[in-house]
């Protein structure tokens, strides 16, 4: 399964979900769903914006774990 480590990166950057949601232009509700891996997919555009704001790589945000 794919695990989203967005909360870890947010903690490292000392940024709140609300601020990230505002800066990348998605709703807090959708960001919350993304954080809890409850979405079917992530657009490259969204991933690009998150990486840009959090100054990280997609690999820092996404992780594969065998079930």
């Amino acid at each position, binding site marked *: 399964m794919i695990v989203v480590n967005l909360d870890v990166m947010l903690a490292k950057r000392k940024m709140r979900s609300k601020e990230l949601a505002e800066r990348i232009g*998605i709703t807090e509700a*959708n*960001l919350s*769903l*993304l954080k809890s891996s*409850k*979405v*079917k*997919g*992530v*657009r490259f555009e*969204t991933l690009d914006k998150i990486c840009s704001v959090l100054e990280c790589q997609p690999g820092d945000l996404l992780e594969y774990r065998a079930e």
Partner: protein
Amino acid sequence: MSQTLTAAPVLSSSFDRARKLSRVMALLFTVCFWGAAAILVCLPAMLIWPLAGSINVNGVEVAFADLSRPQQFFAFLAAAVNFAPALVLLHHARRVFGAFAKGEVFLPATIAHIRSAGVWLIVCFFLGLTTFPLMVAAGLHAPGQIPLDFWPLVIGVTTVIAAHVMREAARIAADHAEIV
């Protein structure tokens, strides 16, 4: 996730005109629905008191008072067979436009009403065919003279297909809604 399937999609401002028109259509269909319901309720009364008036069945003006007792009965059956499915059809039509007026587009309930409206249009066509023997028995049609109107069938099938397409569109939209 299931919550996205039931949530109303965000509509563009250009849909406002369609909403206004839908409100008018919903009102029109509601008036027609209650009118048809009143006629259906009054039909037995016309059979009991034939002087009550006349009614249009399949384009034929039927004056109950001018008919014999058996003819009145067949005319009553023909009218009932005509009005009952039309009533159900009108109910679905007013619900569809009522939902559009509220901006409830591509929702499962709305799509179900569109599909039902199509199905009942098809039912109207086939039940309409059964009224001809009754009209002939009532002496309102010459035997063998069956003026077929295929439009309810064509529109009904088209509406059912459109409902299926809308359901697929709703499923795709729900899928896309789960991608952030």
